């Protein structure tokens, strides 16, 4: 199987990280499957995917903690791991890769002070250079007053600063961040993300950061990669991924809208919310397909009359900042074809509806996005 990359551009010469056909099998379970990825110098990549999709294994493969069953990892022109493709097994040990990592729980050394933690990776430098580098980082991360504290004396946010300072100190070529914000209080999180992003940009650091929260990607990353079941589904700028998801899984995982089953014919489309024209659309696949319906593209006609025949009913009501949030299901009577029935169409509106109320809904014309469930 080939990876579904939308940016299938040839590998650029300035790519800092190149991963070729990486496969990893752990205990007879395929965790990564022929994955290709390349990342330019200075880019921050946000890697999202459900838990167990292989995100952490990918980080481990780059860091040197998981050996590829097949494939290559290249950083800055240096081959770090390879197996299978034209040659035998080759692996540079983790300590020689110049890859930094920030762990979910920071993995700070509890028996060392803040200063000693930051100095840990600077053993090869002279004493004076070490002190200068440590001083620089302490100032930059506002840790000066905690230089002699032990880790357990610091707050979560401070601990994370230490983790960042420690990882940056040996000047790695690539920084990996494994869910770095999941332990931070929600209210502080955004502020901290912006601050760290600025810091990484200042260092011109190339970074990959793993999360299961797509909103963190928008705040923190330049590029977004969506993974599922050991494969990279899409890699692009975050806004492009959201506007043009390349598959059902990507759109579904990112919860970009709800799904309306449709019967696609050569010229028009039939759905329980009415028929519409797709003559202009490029995609001419016919048969059963799912239309991605963003809530903003739904038109509610609460007044049910002869023009506006009821075609859905309210199944769930909640109150949100954007007005009422409803889930609609199709009406039983209308569905001659059971495969077109829907049960959880998301709709936001300022109009108050009651439970089980029948409504007429239509879809505003837009660039329709159809997907097959199993592509």
């Amino acid at each position, binding site marked *: 199987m080939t990876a579904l990359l939308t940016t299938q551009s040839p590998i650029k010469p300035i790519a800092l990280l190149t991963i070729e056909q990486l496969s990893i099998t752990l205990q007879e379970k395929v965790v990564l499957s022929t994955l290709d990825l390349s990342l330019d110098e200075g880019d921050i990549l946000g890697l999202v995917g459900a838990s167990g999709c292989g995100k952490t294994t990918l980080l481990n493969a780059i860091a040197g*903690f998981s050996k590829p069953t097949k494939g290559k990892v290249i950083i800055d022109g240096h081959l770090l791991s390879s197996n299978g493709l034209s040659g035998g097994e080759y692996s540079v040990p983790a300590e020689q890769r110049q890859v*930094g990592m920030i762990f979910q729980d920071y993995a700070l050394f509890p028996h060392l002070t803040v200063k000693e933690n930051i100095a840990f990776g600077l053993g090869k430098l002279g004493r004076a250079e070490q002190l200068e580098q440590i001083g620089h980082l302490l100032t930059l991360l506002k840790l000066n007053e905690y230089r002699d504290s032990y880790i357990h004396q610091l707050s979560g946010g401070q601990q994370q600063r230490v983790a960042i300072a*420690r990882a940056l*100190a*040996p000047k790695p070529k690539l920084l990996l961040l494994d869910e770095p914000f999941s332990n931070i209080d929600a209210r502080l999180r955004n502020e901290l993300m912006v601050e760290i992003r600025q810091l990484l940009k200042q260092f011109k650091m190339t970074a990959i950061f793993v999360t299961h929260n797509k909103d963190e990607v928008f705040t923190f990353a330049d590029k977004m990669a969506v993974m599922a079941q050991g494969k990279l589904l899409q890699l692009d700028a975050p806004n492009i991924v959201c506007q043009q998801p390349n598959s059902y899984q990507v759109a579904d995982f990112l919860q970009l809208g709800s799904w309306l089953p449709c019967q696609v014919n050569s010229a028009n489309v039939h759905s329980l919310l009415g028929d519409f024209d797709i003559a202009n659309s490029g995609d001419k696949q016919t048969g059963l397909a799912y239309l991605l319906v963003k809530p903003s593209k739904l038109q509610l006609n609460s007044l049910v009359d002869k023009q506006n025949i009821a075609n859905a009913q309210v199944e769930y009501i909640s109150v949100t900042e954007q007005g009422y949030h409803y889930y609609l299901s199709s009406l039983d009577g209308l569905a001659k074809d059971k495969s077109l029935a829907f049960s959880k169409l998301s709709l936001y509106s300022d109009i108050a509806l009651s439970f089980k109320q029948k409504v007429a809904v239509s879809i505003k014309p837009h660039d329709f996005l159809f997907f097959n469930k199993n592509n």
Partner: protein
Amino acid sequence: MIALYNSRSWKLSSYIIALVLIVPVLVMLVGGVSASTQLYAHLWQTVLPSYLENTLLLAFWVVLLALFFGVFSAAIITQTNIVFKQQLRWLLLLPLAMPAYLVAYLYTDLFDYAGPVQRALRAWFGWQSPTDYWFFDIRTLPGAALMLALVLFPYIYMLTRGAFEQQDQNLIRASRLLGLTAKQSFFKVALPLARPAIAVSASLVLMETLADFATVQYFSVNTLTTAIYDTWLGYGDLGAANALASILMLLVLFVVLAEQRSRAGLRHQSARPNLTRELIQLSFGQQFIASVFCWALVILGFLLPITLLIIMAVQYSDVAQLSVLLSTGINSLKVSVFAATIAVIIALSLGLYQRLHNDKFRQIPQLISGFGYAVPGTVLAMAMLSTLGPLDHWLNGVVEFIGFTAPGLILSGSLFAVVFALVVRFSAIANGTIASGIKQIPRSLDYAPASLGVNLIGSLTKVHLPILTPAILVAWLLVFVEAMKELPAVLLLRPFNFETLSSQIYQLISDEMLEQGALGAILIVLFGLLPIVLLNNSKEKV
């Protein structure tokens, strides 16, 4: 935290239990401290300095050797790719089941002038007398230290191995990514992080060494424990024995304090122990040395002694031995069943009190009742004698005054004293097991019965005790086994002509006739294996 119940009789009985457990040692200490300065001066001018010196030297050597054995074996098992790792992992625990005095006896038998090793050497080289060659003498202080270290090092191995295995592997990974090799990461991260566990286990070894009686007695190394025994049984001088016991007790208290301090450091562990760790790859030579080291510990600490015992048993067992074994075994069983049952009941009562009662200081009874484990058996025996003896006299006086015949030494001269001492000594084990069982019951289960209209008794019998059943069984078994093995307290306190398995074996060892009791010795070792199997299994589950 809110505690639920407010019963005054429960409170009173909890404090009384705790008090009863601690009073004898207090009485002894008071007696010891208030003994005449003349007595101390006399002791100081005669035997005390050499006893103290021997005790401290022995402790020093045992701890040093046990650290060497325990830390290295734990490091090899957890950090390297040594062959037969899965087998060595549990084999290295087995020496813990072997009483040091048995090993001491067996190796003396093996390496003595008249033993098979020296006989074979003489025959081989044609030597005629001891002047022809040099051979190490095992019946010395360093010899005793080696014997003790061989069977005590698993404490250090077990706790240090646990510390290494519980360590967050991300810490090691972080170290690797910061440029350190696997070996450097071990010395700069893993080993410093294991320091508290190493310190705690070393103080356990220290306590066991201070408490040892039979090994040093057999090797004629005069330490405080042997001095206490000789002073009391040899000269009948309760005052001097008490004074010596008090000094030993103070030494132990220092160790306990040190142990408590190191325990405070046992915090930061256990986040992601299951991540695969990258093992240090041993070269052929290193593999060989590491294997020899680990297998030597297993063989010398367990396999060789148990084989020697089995050979003895096969050669010398007969029906008369079996009947002696049966009668002493029944005595041991009697004492141990009493001790285990009482200790478990006390532990349950104090543990649940700690959990459920409203008393602001509800943890205190449990805390007090646990200290006995640190008290060496000889000291405890002196404490019983100095408390129960006067109590017996008073009782006899009262009974005679009422007009009956005096009953004799019904407390200090009966099984009561033995069982009492065992309960004091091993309550801590029952406490620890049951307390950790109680900790695993969710708080909400304390409140649920009351919210359903069920009272304290109903809550205990229908909720807490059924949930605690496994912990209760394990606690009972652990105390039972320890009581079976306990020697010095039993030796000093047992009623006239009352022999238990361990006291019988000790007598035979003193008379150089262990062959007569080989079966019993094997039985003691087998009992000793039970808690190891239990401990190992519960460790695997964590």
